[in-house]
């Protein structure tokens, strides 16, 4: 091997090594930071009624659902709050301590992110309302549309509402 080729080979080996290290790091970081999304029914029955896909207690997940009317309970001395979420089936409870988003209300579609502390109880670290319902599945959406319209927010095609969400999704995610 002449020196020129040798030097090229070493560059190639170096680049391949770099790529391998980078890929490993990315995959490792990804594994830890992907949060699966569930609806309340899926938390209880598993996805597509397959019980093996139920989330484990202790797992970090996101749950998207509607706040069940009449279930929001506040603690008298702190900012602790508890409410139920449902979709088309049974409901799960969410516990949260902190200030709820501006658009949180009963009957509203929200996404709660946190750790499952009991099979049907989520200890939420954040609660995202309305303008960040990125990952709400279509089944749930049908439900949400029914609730929104009577509140007078949606227009005929839902267009302005939708556009608002797009531009300003900077909203919410925290």
């Amino acid at each position, binding site marked *: 091997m002449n020196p020129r080729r040798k030097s090229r080979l070493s560059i190639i080996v170096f680049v391949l090594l770099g790529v391998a290290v980078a890929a490993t790091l990315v995959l490792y970081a990804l594994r830890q930071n992907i949060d699966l999304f569930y609806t309340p029914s899926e938390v209880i029955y598993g996805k597509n009624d397959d019980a093996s896909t139920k989330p484990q207690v202790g797992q970090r997940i996101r749950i998207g659902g509607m706040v069940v009317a009449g279930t929001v309970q506040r603690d008298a001395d702190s900012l602790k709050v508890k409410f139920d979420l449902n979709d088309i089936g049974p409901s799960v409870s969410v516990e949260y301590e902190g200030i709820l988003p501006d658009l949180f209300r009963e009957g509203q579609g929200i996404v709660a992110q946190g750790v499952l502390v009991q099979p049907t109880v989520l200890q939420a670290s954040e609660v995202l309302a309305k303008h960040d319902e990125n990952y709400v599945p279509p089944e749930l959406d049908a439900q949400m549309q029914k609730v929104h319209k009577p509140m007078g927010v949606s227009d005929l095609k839902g*267009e302005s509402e939708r556009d608002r969400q797009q531009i300003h999704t900077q909203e919410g995610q925290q």
Partner: protein
Amino acid sequence: MIAELGNYALALSLAISLLLAVLPLWGAEKGNPQLMSLARPMTYGLFVSLSVAFAALFYLFAVNDFSVQYVVNNSNTSLPIAYRLSAVWGSHEGSLLLWIWLLTLWSAAVALFSKHLPQEAVARVLGIMGIITIGFLIFVLFTSNPFARTFPDFPVDGRELNPLLQDVGLIFHPPLLYMGYVGFSVAFAFSIATLMTGKLDTAWARWSRPWTMAAWIFLTLGIVLGSWWAYYELGWGGWWFWDPVENASLMPWLAGTALLHSLAVTEKRAAFKAWTVLLAILAFSLCLLGTFLVRSGILVSVHAFASDPTRGLYILAYLVVVIGGSLVLYAYKGSQIRSRDNYQRYSRESLLLLNNILLMTALAVVLLGTLLPLVHKQLGLGSISVGAPFFNQMFMLIMIPFAFLLGIGPLVKWRRDQVSAIRKPVLISLAVMLILGIFLPHFLHDQITVSAALGVMMAVFIVMLAGYELQQRATHRSGFFRGVGKLSRSHWGMLFAHLGVAMTVWGIAFSQNYSIERDVRMNVGDSVQIAGYEFKFQGISDANGPNYLGGKAQVEVFKNGKPETTLYAEKRFYTVSKMSMTEAAIDWGFSRDLYVALGESLGNGAWALRLYYKPFIRWIWLGGLFMAFGGLLCMLDRRYRFAALLNKGANANHHPGTSHE
């Protein structure tokens, strides 16, 4: 009537852009000077015609013409005039019109400031920009026309602009960001034009560099403004959420930054040519991708877009045509580009190459994190979200070598250099950086976290070596002060931009690690201690506005028993859109922000309050402003004669037709 005029102007623009896309390019191919000379007047015509359409939309909003659907959706009789006008780009249709108008503005600017370019190059560049315009005009005219009427049953009053957008930051944020997005079309057009001819000389890099710089400056300012807006308007106190929409603007920025550095090599050393061309294509493609992601909404909201998939599909198709077409051209012609790669392994060129590799890695990380949820869902694996910690971890890892390179890069000579030449200053900087990195966080906040120490180290390293570089450069031939006076504008620009990076890193390191965020329940008269500040809640008073009902919480802040400031955090309820909004109150500070946001009423006179202490958070945006200012200095460097051209261009503008070459 005015709406029809606007619509007519849009149609006329489409006709002009069709001609612009065909005739000059055809002329350039055939060497026909008459056809080529049409490029400039047609570009001006296109700009005027779209300006008419744009002005028409302004007028419709100013008079609240509720027979126009778009006005109905975004305006209201009680909306103040300033927000009525900024509502023009408050939503989908109008912001697309803004996009196109800016595109023609850039085209007109190219036409105006390109007197020194060969006619053929101008004809090609303007023709390509015409092609881009066609795609967007068709999109607006056929799928999202802002001038669509509501006849026959038009409403008495409109809905209103989203309360979140009723803010001064949002008046300027979209135009700035779009100026950046669209500005990369110029670099793109230059690249494609060069690929068509196959003649890629350094003159090409010299022409397109100031344009790229201008686009990058606008993009930087747009991102800074958006981040700042998110911080004070959303009431969460966060400045970056790794949301798809933010990522959509960050990706072109990363590609654009890589492009600027690669263009420097191409201009000065005639190397990296093919790569630079590819980067220019990439940067603009990412701008289009960003528009697609935001406008089609497939990432933001699955449900909202099921009702109108045509828009998303159209942009996707357009994306495929533009990106695919330019890549095919690149594959076909790229091999003709010859670079003069005679540099050693340790040289400025190599370091800039590493800079590009790191920026591309960062870009890949953002792209992966943004698109993975989409791919995952399309493969039927269920919905997922990629959390912010993923991006944070990856960016920290990438920043470490990046900051190191940024520090030493400007000290290394082009072509070849010896490692030993800068061994001493680098070692001293490393030592100082280690000491300060551990000492400063401890001194300022009594505790050390790894990421804070790392951030401080990076900032210190960059600043020290920048100072050393300045001193070296200035004392190269003469005394320090004389030498400093002789440095070129682009050199100062580089210095400012790099110091801006250090400031941003410093701001991020402190605000991410030492912010104190407390959500508390307070009765009137209660007080809470945070970081040596005492926040005292004094009660709520009414604060109604023209289109909202509001309450204002008065919070007095004391430091060491002495009054520091009084903050008024507001909560507003917009009566038309029935949305609640939080207006945070922020006490601005050089080394810290105090932030109060009002939560909900908890009954019995108690309120939820969000009290934040955010050290050095301003530095994040200040650093961004430094970068943009540095960019401006580079753009105005004497060798581009840009400042002179601006004057000349302004003169030529007064006497159109006199200076056509």
